[in-house]
């Protein structure tokens, strides 16, 4: 399943990067050194922590995409860093919990 396959359902807007990324698994959290050891390659990482350090962690963990919850926006310098490192970032009005429910529905094929 690609990021493109989920973006409409989670009402996400692409901030930077590509929607073609394949994803598998989800991590939720804002503490960087917890995310660093728990985000696995190709995961979606849901957070409300929007800065260049988020981008560095996404890059090092090879996350498929960062999804910013609650309409959080990414500052310009972080967008620049994300573009340089080819990181996909989306923002969604949904909360982290609502995002997880929607993603679970999509992944298990029960989405309406």
């Amino acid at each position, binding site marked *: 399943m690609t990021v493109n396959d989920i973006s409409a359902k989670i009402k996400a807007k692409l901030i930077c990067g590509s929607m073609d990324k394949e994803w598998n698994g989800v991590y939720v959290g804002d503490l*960087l*050194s917890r995310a660093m*050891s728990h985000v696995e*390659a190709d995961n979606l990482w849901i957070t409300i922590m929007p800065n260049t*350090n988020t981008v*560095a962690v996404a890059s090092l*963990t090879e996350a498929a995409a960062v999804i910013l919850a609650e309409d959080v926006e990414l500052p310009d310098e972080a967008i620049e860093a994300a573009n340089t490192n080819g990181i996909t970032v989306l923002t969604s009005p949904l909360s982290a919990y609502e995002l997880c429910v929607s993603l679970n529905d999509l992944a298990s094929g029960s989405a309406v």
Partner: protein
Amino acid sequence: MSDAVKFHFEVDGSDFSSAGAASVMVKKKLRQLGYPPDIIRKVSIAMYEGEINMVIHANGGTADVEVSDEEIVITLSDRGPGIPNVELAMQEGYSTARENIRNLGFGAGMGLPNMKKYTDSMKIDTVVGEGTTITMTVKL
């Protein structure tokens, strides 16, 4: 590969926003050199945490990475305040990070524990008032 590959970085302690740049660079290089994903993951996590610690706790420092046939050795050296109680600092959840730093997502107190967990050996040489040198090895 017979000759050791070496990287050296000056880590700027004044700019929290570019923190992690050396680790991102090393990861790219290791990828180009064709190292397996699990090795790259270990080195990335350990080096990132050490690099960030130098930026947020020690005003910057230097990072050296040496890759040989058997192992990858990461050496992080700073002239910061030193760590008064290493045993305490190594505990999960222990952090002296201040509010402005916590607001950026740091301060979980998981950096040093991650560095230990994801490397095969880790040595901390620290003197209060002089600085800290951390040497970590990942076996290939």
